[in-house]
């Protein structure tokens, strides 16, 4: 604004009229529609298409002078918004970015300028002044990336020496009386009504002290009897007080061409008409006094300008990246996230989503319906999911598991882990899923048949160790008991949260494993010193009933902190072994009621989320069924240790149990051996009978003592 006044102060003698250029304004719907047109109608057709924009003279001060294109821009015969003026344009949509770049912009501008000039010379523009206000839009739509390159041009014909301002631009209310202003408004509305429109882009004007008369451009000869000084009105989209908008430019060329010889001074009313809070005003319109220079006498088209500058102020195209609002992949991602955000706003304001979303989940060798779990994970915003499986998809899978399709079964079946990832990515591209087709070595399943099988087992263990340390939560969803042993040991050692789910025919257990306190270096060394002696002397301190009775009875099942909770193997007095041996086929594969896997799987995910919501995470005190009436520890409610469900009764209970100091998976002695000996220890476990682990942990002795006690009675 400061620059405006400075310009105005400088001598008016050689003050040239300057125009506010159009700024292109595109509504979101325009690009949607262009995409549709490109895909369905234009395809590879690069020829020019008619489109339509509009401009408005009622903007508040400070807004740029715009030419707006909305989704309806492609409907050239469609209605123009009320009180707006239409502008017709040519759309050049190129097929390649290269074509966009190499298009001869100067030629495009000159072609359009020539058409305007022809309309001026032939007088067609007098009858239809909308021919004066045209534009060019050059676009390239990269529909793979949803990047749109575009460049607008608003062709304007130029006087070689510019246009002189005779008198400083003044606001209408300084020139016109209130009565004249009211009369002008009335006359303008009357002209609109007469022409059946809500806006008139150019008009002629005559006024006295208390009357105003308006007429369309084509009435020039009958309207003006004295052409010493004429007044023309232009519908002016500019809001600057010292400058008119772009539409006046070509009108002045028209005036000079048609009546230039007769005209001395031209008075221009830059008609602005805004309504604020229901009250209308036109008194901020601007009056200009101009001296029109003569156009060169030959009929050649004058010089033309009009390509729009980009936001940097340089002569160049613009680019807009709409991948976020148009790319279906991004839309799917944002709507999943949005659902979560809404859940937070609506239901659980204290929900800490980032905690959940940032967690990576790995599900080693889960049972078949685990893939439905994936939906739960995604529903909670978990983005990193890793599947571990060694099975191929069989024909019975697709009907039970929506993640697999019939095609996946063909040709011997795809690997389940890999197919699951493919499918999951199809359903929700935002997921970062990985699949590992590998076996998990198990106790009682020897791996020492050959050097090859042994080294394969070693690689599998290393891979599993790597995966577990890379993830935050491990889900154990296998078919067999023994296959859970290795991940339990590794995760226990790495202090990772483990959620375990196991199915019977119509019962299930979903549990979190006790999360051991982080190892303190001094304690560990002290324990390693004492533990071998403990096992070698067969631990006379161990009582027949195990550690369960060694803690005070009052706190037996209530308020067990997370680090004292048991694991899947803690309640067993038998080490895991080959449970599939000597069984019939129907016993080998777990036969369950079909809904059970989904119920247990969903509960497992929900349990994980509840644990993560707890401020202490895996160390949270276990809730039990008795806590159902108490104040819940997290915004999502209880954080149980176990959920045991009975589908026959449709009943769930929430027990909690302590870690067993002779547990074959999480007792200090097992973790300690694994930490010190690594694969050597593991291979002993895999290759030996189940007595190896029982001997190590003191279970053998426990058995003997129990038997002795029974015989004694």
């Amino acid at each position, binding site marked *: 604004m400061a620059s405006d006044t400075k310009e105005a102060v400088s001598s008016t003698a050689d003050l040239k009229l300057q125009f506010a250029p159009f700024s292109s304004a595109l509504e*979101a719907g325009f690009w949607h529609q262009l995409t549709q047109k490109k895909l369905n109608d234009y395809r590879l057709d690069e020829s020019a298409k008619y489109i339509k924009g509009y401009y408005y003279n009622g903007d508040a001060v400070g807004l740029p002078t715009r030419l707006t294109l909305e989704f309806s821009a492609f409907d050239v015969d469609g209605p123009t918004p009320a009180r707006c003026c239409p502008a017709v344009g040519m759309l050049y949509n190129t097929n390649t970015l290269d074509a966009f*770049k190499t298009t001869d*912009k100067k030629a495009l501008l000159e072609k359009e300028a020539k058409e305007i000039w022809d309309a001026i010379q032939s007088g067609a523009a007098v009858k239809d002044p909308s021919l004066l206000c045209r534009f060019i839009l050059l676009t390239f739509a990269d529909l793979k990336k949803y990047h749109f390159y575009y460049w607008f041009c608003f062709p304007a014909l130029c006087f070689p020496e510019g246009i002189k301002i005779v008198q400083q631009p003044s606001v209408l209310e300084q020139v016109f009386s209130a009565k004249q202003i009211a009369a002008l408004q009335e006359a303008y509305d009357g002209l609109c009504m007469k022409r059946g429109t809500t806006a008139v882009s150019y008009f002629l004007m005559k006024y006295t002290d208390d009357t105003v008369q308006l007429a369309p451009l084509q009435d020039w000869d009958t309207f003006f009897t004295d052409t010493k000084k004429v007044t023309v009105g232009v519908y002016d989209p500019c809001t600057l007080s010292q400058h008119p908008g772009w539409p006046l430019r070509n009108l002045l060329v028209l005036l000079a061409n048609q009546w230039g010889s007769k005209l001395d001074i031209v008075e221009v009313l830059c008609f602005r008409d805004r309504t604020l809070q*229901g009250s209308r005003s036109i008194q901020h319109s601007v009056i200009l006094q101009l001296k029109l220079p003569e156009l060169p006498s030959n009929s050649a088209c004058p010089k033309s300008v009009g390509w729009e500058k980009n936001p940097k102020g340089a002569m160049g195209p*613009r680019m807009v990246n709409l991948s976020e*609002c148009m790319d279906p992949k991004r839309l799917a991602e944002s709507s999943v996230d949005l659902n979560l955000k809404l859940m937070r706003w609506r239901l659980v304001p204290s929900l800490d989503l980032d905690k959940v979303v940032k967690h990576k989940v790995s599900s080693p060798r889960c049972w078949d319906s685990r893939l439905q779990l994936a939906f739960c994970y995604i529903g909670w915003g978990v983005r990193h999911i890793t599947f571990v499986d060694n099975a191929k998809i069989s024909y019975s899978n697709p009907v039970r598991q929506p993640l697999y399709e019939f095609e996946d079964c063909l040709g011997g079946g795809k690997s389940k882990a890999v197919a699951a990832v493919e499918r999951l990515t199809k359903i929700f591209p935002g997921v970062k899923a990985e699949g590992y087709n590998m076996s998990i070595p198990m106790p009682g399943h020897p791996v020492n048949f050959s050097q090859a099988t042994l080294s394969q087992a070693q690689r599998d263990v290393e891979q599993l160790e790597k995966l577990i340390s890379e993830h935050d939560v491990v889900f154990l969803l296998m078919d067999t008991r023994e296959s859970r042993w290795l991940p339990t040991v590794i995760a226990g050692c790495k202090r990772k949260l483990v959620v375990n789910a196991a199915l019977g025919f119509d019962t299930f257990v979903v549990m979190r494993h006790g999360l051991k306190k982080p190892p303190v270096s001094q304690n560990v060394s002290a324990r390693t010193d004492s533990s071998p002696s403990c096992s070698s002397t067969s631990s006379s301190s161990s009582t027949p009933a195990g550690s369960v009775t060694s803690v005070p009875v009052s706190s037996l099942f209530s308020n067990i902190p997370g680090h004292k909770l048991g694991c899947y193997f803690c309640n067993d007095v038998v080490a895991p072994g080959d449970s599939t041996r000597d069984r019939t086929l129907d016993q080998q594969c777990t036969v369950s009621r079909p809904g059970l896997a989904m119920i247990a799987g969903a509960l497992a995910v929900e349990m994980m989320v509840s644990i993560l919501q707890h401020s202490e995470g895996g160390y949270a005190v276990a809730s039990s069924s008795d806590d159902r009436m108490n104040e819940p520890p997290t915004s999502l409610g209880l954080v149980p240790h176990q959920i045991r469900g009975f589908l026959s009764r449709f009943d769930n209970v929430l027990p909690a149990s302590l870690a067993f100091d002779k547990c074959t998976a999480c007792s200090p002695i097992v973790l300690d051996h694994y930490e010190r000996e690594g694969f050597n220890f593991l291979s002993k476990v895999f290759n030996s009978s189940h007595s190896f682990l029982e001997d190590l942990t003191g279970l053998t002795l426990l058995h003997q003592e129990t038997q002795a006690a029974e015989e004694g009675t």
Partner: protein
Amino acid sequence: MSLGVLEEETFCHCCHQLLQQSEQLRDGWTWESVQGSQEGYLRKTVLRSAVINSHPVWNQEESSSDSKTHTSCHSWPDQQGQEKEQCVVDEDDGVCVVPEGNSQVLQYEYHILYSSSYSTPVLYFRASTLEGRSLSLEEVWSSVHPNFKTRLLNNPLSTITQQEHPLLGQPFFMLHPCRTHEFMRPVLQSAQDQRGQVNYMLTWLSVVGPLVGLEVPLNYNFKLQNAIQYYTLTSPQT
């Protein structure tokens, strides 16, 4: 007719009335009918300059790399291209220097649709930059006035949700209608008690509109007093 419920017929009637008043007040509401159906919606566009935070906190990880290119202009990397662009630039001394503000100009588009599931009007809207890039939910939030923001976050009454426009199929934001009955009922009740008359739509719009920057001029109410046609609560037709 239970109090607070808006029948579709009444909705159309209210829209008609609002359009008439908007015409008088030049408030810019229009009726857009969907081709090949009787359905339609009220539409209004508003231009506003606002400071938006285009680096939302939420998706910082993902958007940080992309957001730079959102509004950037494209510069040609190759020398040849640059030479070509030079030809386009003809000196134009007829252009004035337009002062640039710090804030960005945003285009808001408001739609009012009837929801037969909730039996209420629903306000859909979207906002875009002048380049046609739709604002993300975070950006919309950052443009909501702080006074309203705390209220909205604490008050699920009119949470902003992203949904597909039921008639256009494009992504829009909407003010969720699930509690509309709740806040409309007392207004309608008091109007009924005082044997007064109220345009459901205007009352509703004046409550929900300002939350997302849509102002309803007071003159509407003034005009209502002088309007011949009323939507009376006591009308037994429906």
